[in-house]
């Protein structure tokens, strides 16, 4: 940024000098505020009965689209707290065309995310080169036991079905 002449001015707060006489009025102003709050509508959502719609971009839980995953381990490497556990093996497949060479493909055996460790930074979703990981705004997956927070690839696959319709393409529909 070019150093422009600052337009800001200083302003000293004026309210309430120490010697200012008591304002009994102030006591009633406060009572008036609470009375208005009492008579206005309450602003809470009765959670289990009524649910707030989470934002489309809300980072609720990570979903895995298994067929996109090539076991490249980028997400596991980039994760700041190493909460992604991936195991895979190589398999030989029939050649695509007749007379072609047989292929080797990576098959995913295990893809676990430990949501007790995850800090929801979104780096894994970002670095995935094949768009196998997505954010879903779902948030209701608390558990009684901490070990149940390790979601395996089936559970992550289910979360993937709850992701918002349009994946990250710059613009979303209006959030609410």
């Amino acid at each position, binding site marked *: 940024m070019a150093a422009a002449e*600052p337009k800001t001015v200083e302003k000293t707060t004026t309210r309430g000098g120490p010697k200012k006489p008591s*304002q009994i009025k*102030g006591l009633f102003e*406060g009572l008036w505020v*609470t009375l208005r709050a009492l008579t206005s509508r309450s602003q809470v959502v009765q959670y289990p009965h009524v649910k707030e719609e989470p934002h489309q*971009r809300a980072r609720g839980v990570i979903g895995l689209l298994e067929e996109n995953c090539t076991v490249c381990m980028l997400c596991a490497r*980039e994760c*700041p707290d190493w909460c992604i556990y991936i195991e895979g093996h190589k398999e030989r497949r029939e050649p695509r065309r007749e007379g072609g060479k047989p292929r080797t493909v990576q098959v995913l055996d295990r893809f676990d995310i430990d949501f007790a460790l995850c800090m929801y930074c979104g780096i894994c979703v970002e670095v995935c080169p094949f768009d196998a990981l997505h954010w879903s705004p779902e948030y209701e997956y608390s558990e009684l036991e901490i070990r149940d927070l390790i979601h395996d690839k089936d559970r992550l696959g289910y979360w993937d079905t709850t992701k918002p319709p349009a994946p990250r393409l710059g613009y979303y529909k209006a959030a609410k």
Partner: protein
Amino acid sequence: MTSVQSHLSASFAAHLADAQVAVEIETPEMTLNIGPQHPSTHGVFRLIAKVDGERVTEVEPVLGYMHRGYEKLCEVRTYAQVTALVNRLDWLSGYCNEIPFILSAEKLMGIEAPPRVQYIRTILSELARQATFLVFLGSFGIELGALTPFFHTMRDREKVLDLLESVTGGRFHPNFNRVGGILDDLPPGFVEECAAVMDDVDKMCDQVDALLFGNDIFRERTLGVGVIPLDKGLEYGVSGANIRASGCAADVRRDEPYLVYDEVDFDVVTDTRGDAFARAYCRLQETRESTRIVRQCLKALPSGPIMAKVPKVIQVPPGEVYVRAENPLGEMGYYLVSRGGRIPYRVKVRTASFNNVSVLPWLLEGVFMPDLIAILGSLYFILGDVDR
């Protein structure tokens, strides 16, 4: 002889509890451990206070219960990962923590983010500032015994956090900045929604003004309490609204403009009294200034790309740089040393709360117990920011 002794020991045994309490009262000074788990310290902060009745004679703050070693962690994380980490320093304004770090990395790389990014960053950091100050205005009321302002300000803070979430996906820890830009553009409809929320925040400021600052009891409790004289404040390195309330118009946003603060019009709110009231009132006024800044940015928001041209793998050339920014709690700075490569060599974080807390032993000498709570509240520190 023995019967007397046995009688004595029996009576001692019977009244052990009495004796214990009595001895504690007779001592001229009672040691009171405030914390590490005490409702008014906002986390694990411990004050060893020597009290004489209701008067505090000596205070020793004990820090470090929440030390998470972030500076060390930063040395083994890539730049993108560090952004996620520094969100957690001052957890109430996570977005503001990212700004100076990203700016320092950009400075070393010689990249400048496109103008639209600068504006969006400014808007989001001001939103985070408002959210933080709304928490302050509410929790300061709680410390002084008024429960209601807390819920009132929380209502509007929720709206502000909703805005942040609709852009970044995270309410507290956005992790939205990347070196050279931001992750995503503003969602459609954001500008209108944001302008409406700014009106709400302004209304809430008026409401809190009536509920707390006009109230005689509140004024009695805070006026003249915990005065930090300007020279003492500067000696201890107090920053933010705490020093502005003592009469020093130090605001990094104006003194060393970063982002687009040199293009918007806002006032640096100061006060001369330096007491708890002044500190709280400065923050209230700054919330109003903040909504002003956001409105101007929304109006002037340019179009354009949201990412500068950066290499796919962020590698920062060798060098060192110090970038500071005006965070809600005060001045925050990152001293970044790079020896090239994907990870920083050393990151030193200057957090505002740590310096603000350092004034406590001097400030709390000879105050009353209830004032101690009021002063702690008015300094407004976050333990994650103190202990790092």
